[in-house]
């Protein structure tokens, strides 16, 4: 790969981190954190993105970042006060910046329309400037010994101090060897200075030795740059920020700027003096002491100040608590960057090791070594070690869910904007770790649940006020470990599920019988049924009736479960529980028609050996099993998968009771059970394609491939068989 491209990839990786810092910093500020370092951190993030983008010539990104950075710099310098509405604007600007970065990553440029609009908004704030601070009041107006009243006057003329005023700076810049060694270039830095104003460069080559003594790796040149610009000194210093310590730089303001006061500032001073004189017409003419009436000055505000955007006093944070102050997090962890592919490779290899160790153990046992023999004990130790290595390697790949959570505030803002609702997102447990394979897959269900919570859960501000709640709704996103799984909760403080309505819709759509007796919990969970959508208008936010059933399906595809609990008037909470990894799976190893198959344990409710009397024929080929007080349809795995044409007599074999999405509870019939085992999941799709009824494959101790059943698909396939028995439309007892 092109070296520059590699650096560019690193740049974009860093951009993602910087954008994350930017957003979390802004969110902390939004939540009421007044720590000044936060503003600095936010500024630095934007500045670094701009710096890197400049190096790669990403002009559009640089232009936008520059405007953004200017406003942040004003805030940092206290020129612009941070108000809640400004913070909201900054958050949206951060979104636009993220769009630019994302576009640049693909080699394009950000959306011009939204950028222009955002730049305009930002510039309004930049040019807004501070409100004029009132001139200091003369404290002591005692006449002096001559009887003349001197009124000490402090004239504050902010437009002269801080407005554009050209000055001339002399910058001497002498790079050291390290500057070049770090792949910086003097020419680029000088060009960077040129962007600030008009420059006049002089090369200082006094240190250049005679040719014989010339060391090509030593820096011999220095430059003297005269810069005429209106930017403050810090801006000039920023140019050298990245080469600090690798050059000696002096920046000196020339004593008498050639243009002291710009034309537009001139009349202001004249006006103030005139006003002062006018106010003192009656004073002693001999001395004409400058006796300025404060009121007169105040009544004539300097005209140069743009009155457009009145700037309020320092904003008081409105949110009562900050969910996760960044101080609580460890910042300076020593980390290394590793290509994820290398870790994946390592995990694959450890998976091989586990399989190999199991094969070895099986062969050793086959040769009649006792478990207590030296060989047997050695194998036990090997097994222990292998498991430890596997756990450690999996831990390397574990990632905090933060990377997913970080994307959510933006989503919430967008949905809030679309729905006209006021939403505050509170996140918790961002540092909960889970395997990369899971991280990649949880973003979508979380997105869906959040959309649902805001769109359907939260009320409009008016409704909330009517219900006696604060206008701003709260959505809580939390992650935690529980029982070897990761649990993700999405809760809202909205109106909760309207159970009579849900029930009515389910009846109308024929999903449940009109007289079905359902508990509250069962009613709540009706929303997961395919084709169920409670939104009376189909919105583009929560989809077109493919809402929660799709979420549930994708979650179950990951070996997870999703449920909802709701309190009318107080809100609802979705709870999502997922395995910590998709690389291994706890499964039940079974035999069907001479084939070894693995059934995911999460799907299995119980396994049993039915008595002949419990198996009932139903129709020509169908059958049901009486389990306690319910009849459960029998599913012959071998026949559904096409391994055999005749069915196993369930009374001869073993039955696994499973919960499936489509058909409710079902009884899978197998020949025998080998027991539970943790298996390494291998994709069938990487070399072949998806196979109906099969979720994935694994490799067993004997080195052979075993297929992992997709229980839902299997039950669904059975339903598609021509000779099926009529299925109850829903197993409400699920």
């Amino acid at each position, binding site marked *: 790969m092109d070296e520059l491209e590699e650096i560019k990839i690193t740049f974009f990786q860093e951009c993602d981190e910087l954008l994350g810092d930017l957003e979390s910093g802004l969110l902390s500020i939004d939540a009421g954190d007044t720590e000044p370092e936060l503003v600095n951190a936010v500024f630095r993030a934007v500045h670094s993105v701009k710096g890197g983008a400049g190096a790669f010539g990403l002009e559009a990104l640089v232009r936008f970042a520059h405007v953004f950075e200017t406003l942040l710099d004003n805030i940092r310098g206290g020129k612009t006060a941070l108000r809640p509405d400004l913070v909201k604007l900054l958050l949206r600007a951060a979104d636009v910046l993220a769009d630019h970065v994302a576009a640049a990553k693909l080699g394009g440029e950000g959306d011009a329309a939204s950028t222009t609009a955002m730049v305009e908004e930002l510039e309004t704030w930049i040019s807004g400037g501070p409100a004029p601070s009132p001139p200091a009041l003369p404290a002591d107006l005692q006449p002096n010994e001559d009887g003349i009243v001197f009124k000490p006057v402090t004239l504050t003329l902010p437009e002269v101090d801080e407005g554009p005023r050209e000055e001339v700076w002399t910058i001497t810049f002498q790079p050291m060897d390290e500057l070049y060694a770090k792949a910086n270039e003097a020419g680029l830095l000088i060009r960077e200075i040129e962007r600030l104003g008009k420059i006049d460069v002089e090369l200082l080559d006094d240190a250049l030795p005679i040719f014989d003594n010339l060391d090509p790796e030593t820096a011999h040149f220095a430059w003297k740059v005269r810069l005429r610009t209106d930017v403050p000194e810090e801006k000039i210093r920023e140019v050298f920020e990245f080469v600090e310590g690798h050059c000696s730089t002096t920046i000196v303001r020339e004593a008498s700027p050639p243009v002291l006061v710009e034309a537009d500032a001139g009349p202001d001073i004249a006006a103030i003096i005139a006003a002062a004189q006018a106010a003192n017409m009656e004073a002693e003419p001999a001395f004409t002491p400058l006796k300025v009436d404060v009121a007169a000055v105040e009544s004539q505000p300097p005209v140069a100040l743009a009155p457009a955007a009145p700037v309020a006093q320092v904003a008081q944070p409105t949110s009562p608590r900050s969910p996760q102050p960044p101080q609580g997090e460890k910042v300076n962890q020593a980390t290394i960057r590793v290509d994820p592919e290398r870790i994946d490779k390592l995990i*694959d*290899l450890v*998976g*091989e090791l586990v*399989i190999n160790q199991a094969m070895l153990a099986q062969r050793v046992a086959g040769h009649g070594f006792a478990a207590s023999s030296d060989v047997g004990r050695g194998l036990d130790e090997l097994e222990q070690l292998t498991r430890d290595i596997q756990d450690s390697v999996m831990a390397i790949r574990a990632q905090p869910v933060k990377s997913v959570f970080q994307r959510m505030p933006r989503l919430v803002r967008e949905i809030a904007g679309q729905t006209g609702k006021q939403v505050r997102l509170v996140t918790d447990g961002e540092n909960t770790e889970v395997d990369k394979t899971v991280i990649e897959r949880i973003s979508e269900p979380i997105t869906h649940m959040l959309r649902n919570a805001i769109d359907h859960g939260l009320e409009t501000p008016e409704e909330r006020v009517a219900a006696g709640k604060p206008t701003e709704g709260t959505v809580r996103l939390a992650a935690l470990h529980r029982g070897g799984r990761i649990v993700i909760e999405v809760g809202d403080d909205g109106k909760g599920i309207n159970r009579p309505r849900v029930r009515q819709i389910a009846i109308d759509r024929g999903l449940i019988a009109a007289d079905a007796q359902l508990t509250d919990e069962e009613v709540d969970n009706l929303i997961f049924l395919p084709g169920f959508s409670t939104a009376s208008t189909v919105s583009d936010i929560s989809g077109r009736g493919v809402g929660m059933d799709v979420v549930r399906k994708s979650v179950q595809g990951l070996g997870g479960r999703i449920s909802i609990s709701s309190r009318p008037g107080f809100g609802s909470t979705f709870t999502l529980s997922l395995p910590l990894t998709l690389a291994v799976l706890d499964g039940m190893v079974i035999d069907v028609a001479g*084939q*070894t198959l693995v059934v995911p344990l999460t799907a299995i409710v119980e396994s049993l050996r039915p008595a002949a009397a419990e198996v009932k024929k139903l129709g020509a080929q169908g059958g049901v099993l009486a389990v306690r007080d319910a009849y459960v349809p029998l599913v012959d795995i071998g026949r559904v*998968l*096409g*391994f055999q044409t005749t069915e196993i007599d369930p009374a001869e074999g073993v039955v696994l009771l499973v919960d499936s999405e489509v058909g409710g509870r079902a009884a899978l019939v197998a020949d025998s059970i080998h027991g539970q085992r943790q298996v390494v999941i*291998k*994709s*069938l799709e*990487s*070399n*072949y*394609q998806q*196979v*109906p*009824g*099969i979720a994935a*494959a694994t*490799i067993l101790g004997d*080195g*052979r*491939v*075993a*297929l992992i059943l997709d229980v839902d698909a299997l039950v669904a396939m059975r339903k598609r068989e021509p000779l099926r028995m009529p299925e109850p439309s829903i197993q409400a007892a699920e």
Partner: protein
Amino acid sequence: MNQPANIGASERRELTSFWTGEQEYCVDIMSVREIRGWSAATPLPQSPNYMRGVINLRGAVLPIMDLAERLDLPPTQPSERSVIIVVQVGERLVGLLVDAVSDILSITPDQIQPTPDVGCDQSKAFIRGLITIDDRMVSEIAVERLLPDLEGLAA
């Protein structure tokens, strides 16, 4: 690597030839990853007959295709002498079950003739061209057309 056979270049190509269904075929040697002995495959449900199932190839799940059956020839009866040729097709690996590997051929493009119309679409679809070596006729398999989903023939 799978250039059309009638490309005008004079580059020599090497091909691995093998026997299946009493006919000699070959594939571009560049697409061959390895050649291994037959081991029993785990059958895949709901898949075409020519898919013999999957085996463990050092931790990866490798689908095995009976080439003879794919070419509408009588199915191969795997024996100890049967061979699996692991070929790469795009990003994927697939194992071709054949009777025996016979030769490595080094040919120039002009040695390849287009496949004449013999009224057997299945064979013609998978054969890139015919190569004559002495009095042998070897048909070059277009491996990229073998996989069912790439061909639009999903199970």
